[in-house]
C-alpha cells in the first residue's frame, strides 16, 4: 500500500469514528436529562396547542417513530435504522410534514449561500494576507488592523448592520427571504434576478467576516515562510524575487487549506445565524423556527445535518490536502 492510500484509510477510519460519535451525541444528549425528557419536550410543545386531537396525534406519531416507550438502547437502534432509511421523523410544528422534506427544501439555499461565500472569502482573505505580509509597510499597517477588527465582529452583527444600512435605510436590497414572496419558483430571468438580489447581502456579510479571519492567518503564515531558510538560500542562488514569492505563497497557502477545514464548523455556524438575520430560507432559519416552536425532531434533524456536512467538508479537504502537499506525504512515509 502506498503512502497516500495509507493516509486515506487512516483518515477514513477516524472520520467514521467521529461520525459515530456525532450521531450518538445527537441522540443521547437530549435524552440525558432526568425523567422522560422526550415526553417532557412533547408536553412542552403541546402546551401551546388547544386542539387535543392534534396533540394526541403528534405525540403518538413521535412515540411510534422513535419508540420512546422502549429501553434507551432499543431507541438508539431504531434511531440508527431510521437514519439509514433517511427517516428523521415528523415535524411537530409543521405536522405532518416529514423533517427530511423540510431539510431537503432548505439545503439548496444554505449550500448556495455558504459554499460560494466561504470560498470567495477564503480566497480573497488569503490574497490580502499574503500581500500584507509581503508588501509590509503602510499596506500591512492598514490591512492588518482592519482585518483584525472585521474578524472580531460576529457574523450576525455584520449581517444585522448590513441589513439595516443597505436594506432598510438605503433600500438597495430586499429585507428578507430568498426571493420575492409573490413569485413562483421557476427558471425565469425575473426569478433568478430576485434570487440574486436576496442573495447579495447575506453573501457579502459572510464573505467579509471570512476575509478578516483568513487574512490574519495568511499574514502570519506568510511572515513565517518569508523568514524560512529556503528564501535566503534561493535568493543567494540568484532566483528572482517574484519566483521566490511564489514559493512563499504556495507554502503559506497549503496550511491555510487545513485552516479552512478546521474553521469550517465555526463558519457554518456563523453563516447559519446570518440566515436567521435575513430570514433566508435555509437550514439556519429552520433551526431558529424549530427552536422557537420546540419542534424537537426538526431541531435534531438540523443539528445532525449540520454536523454531517461539516464532517464531510473536513474529510474532503483533508483528502485533497494530503494529495497536494508533499510535506504531508513525507510525514506519512516516516510513519511507516
Amino acid at each position, binding site marked *: 500500500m502506498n503512502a497516500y492510500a495509507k493516509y486515506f484509510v487512516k483518515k477514513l477510519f477516524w472520520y467514521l469514528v467521529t461520525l459515530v460519535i456525532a450521531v450518538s451525541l445527537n441522540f443521547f444528549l437530549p435524552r440525558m436529562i432526568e425523567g422522560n425528557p422526550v415526553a417532557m419536550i412533547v408536553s412542552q410543545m403541546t402546551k401551546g396547542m388547544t386542539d387535543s386531537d392534534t396533540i394526541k396525534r403528534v405525540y403518538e406519531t413521535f412515540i411510534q417513530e422513535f419508540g420512546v416507550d422502549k429501553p434507551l438502547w432499543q431507541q438508539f437502534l431504531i434511531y440508527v435504522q431510521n437514519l439509514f432509511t433517511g427517516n428523521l421523523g415528523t415535524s411537530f410544528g409543521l405536522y405532518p410534514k416529514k423533517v427530511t422534506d423540510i431539510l431537503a427544501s432548505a439545503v439548496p439555499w444554505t449550500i448556495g449561500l455558504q459554499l460560494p461565500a466561504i470560498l470567495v472569502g477564503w480566497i480573497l482573505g488569503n490574497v490580502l494576507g499574503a500581500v500584507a505580509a509581503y508588501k509590509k509597510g503602510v499596506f500591512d499597517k492598514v490591512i492588518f488592523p482592519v482585518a483584525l477588527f472585521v474578524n472580531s465582529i460576529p457574523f450576525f452583527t455584520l449581517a444585522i448592520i448590513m441589513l439595516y444600512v443597505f436594506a432598510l435605510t438605503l433600500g438597495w436590497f430586499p429585507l428578507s427571504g430568498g426571493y420575492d414572496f409573490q413569485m413562483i419558483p421557476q427558471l425565469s430571468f425575473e426569478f433568478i434576478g430576485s434570487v440574486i438580489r436576496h442573495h447579495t447581502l447575506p453573501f457579502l456579510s459572510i464573505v467579509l467576516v471570512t476575509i478578516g479571519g483568513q487574512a490574519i492567518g495568511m499574514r502570519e503564515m506568510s511572515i513565517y515562510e518569508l523568514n*524560512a*531558510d*529556503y528564501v*535566503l*538560500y*534561493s*535568493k*543567494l*542562488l*540568484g*532566483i*528572482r524575487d517574484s*519566483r521566490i514569492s511564489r*514559493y512563499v505563497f*504556495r*507554502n503559506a497557502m*497549503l496550511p491555510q487549506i487545513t485552516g479552512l477545514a478546521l474553521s469550517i464548523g465555526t463558519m457554518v455556524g456563523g453563516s447559519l445565524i446570518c440566515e436567521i438575520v435575513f430570514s433566508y430560507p435555509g437550514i439556519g432559519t429552520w433551526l431558529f423556527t424549530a427552536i422557537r416552536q420546540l419542534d424537537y425532531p426538526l431541531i435534531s434533524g438540523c443539528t445532525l445535518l449540520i454536523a454531517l456536512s461539516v464532517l464531510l467538508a473536513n474529510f474532503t479537504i483533508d483528502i485533497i490536502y494530503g494529495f497536494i*502537499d*508533499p*510535506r504531508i*506525504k*513525507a*510525514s506519512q*512515509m516516516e510513519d511507516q
Partner: protein
Amino acid sequence: MTTNILEVSGLKTYYKTRLKEKVFAVDGVDFVLEEGKTLGIAGESGCGKSTLALSLMGFYFPPLHYGSGSIQIHGRDIMKLSKEQLRTQISGREIAYIPQAAMNALNPTLRIIRFIEDIMKEHRPELTKKQVWDMAVERFETLNLSPKVLRSYPNELSGGMKQRTVIAISTILNPKVLIADEPTSALDVTSQKAVIKLMKDLLDKQFIRSLVFITHELPLLYHVTDDIMVMYAGEIVERGTAEQMIFDPLHPYTKKLMGSIIVPEEGMKGHKLAAIPGTPPNLKHVPAGCRFAERCSYAQDQCRENNVAVKEVDGRQYRCHFDTGTLKEWYANEQS
C-alpha cells in the same frame, strides 16, 4: 602565477537592533584567497563567522546591513554592483553559498529538479527542460549522488543526503568560490565524511576553484583546508597554513582554541572546541584595546588600553601586542 580569486578589504557589516543600535558583527575584515586554495574560518559561536560568510555574498537582508569595505571577485568589486547585476551575474555563478541549516534550505514543496530548473531559468535560460535534466543527472552521477534524488521532495531525503544535495545544487553553475557555513556540524560522523569527500571531489574535478569552509571545530579544518583564519569578536585574529595554526599557533586565542592537543591524528578525532573560560565580548560594547584581553591569561595593561594592529611574520598574520618570540617562550614555559 597565482591570481587572487577573492579579495576582501576593510569589510564592516552590522546588525540593526530593534532599538536602532548598530552591532558590528564583522568589524574590519581583510583577507585574500588565491585561486585553487581553500580557506577555513574558525571561532566560537558568536564571533561573527557566520555573518562574515553571509556578508561575502554581497546581499544584505535586514537586520544585517552593509557598512563599508570591498569584496572583489577576480578584481571586480561586487559591492559596487546593483542588486540586479549581483543577482544575475554573481549569485550562484561566481560565488555560491551553503547555509548553516541546510536541512531547511530547500523549499519543502518543490521537487529538487524543479528547483534546479528554476535556477537555470535565471542563469541559463537557453537550456531546455530536457537539457537541464541531463545536465543535473550527469552532475549528480559524477558526484556519486543518486539521480533519483532529483525527483524527490526534500523531506523524502535523509539529513546527510539533503546536505549533499544542497552542496550539489549550490555548485551546479560551477561557481569560482564556494562558501560553506558549518556544512557538517548537524551531521553524524558518517555523513560528515561524505560531505567532506564531496567538497574534495568538487575541488578535484574543478567544479569549484576555491572553498571557504566555516566551522567551530578547528581540528576538522586540518583535513580540509590549506589555510585557516581564526575570528574573534568580529575581527580576524590570526591566519596561517593549517599546519601552522594547529601545531604552532601564535595568538593566545588560537592556542586556547586548540586546547592541549598534542597528538593530532588520533587525539584530534571527534575533539571539539576546548571550553575557554568566559564568553566573547558583547559586540554592542566592544572593549578598548585587544578584544581578547579580558579572557587572555597573558594580558597586560597595554593590551587593555592600546588597539592592536595586525603583525605579519613569515607570511602569517596575527593580531597581538607581543612578538612571536615572547609568545613562543610563554607557550614553552606552560608546556613544561
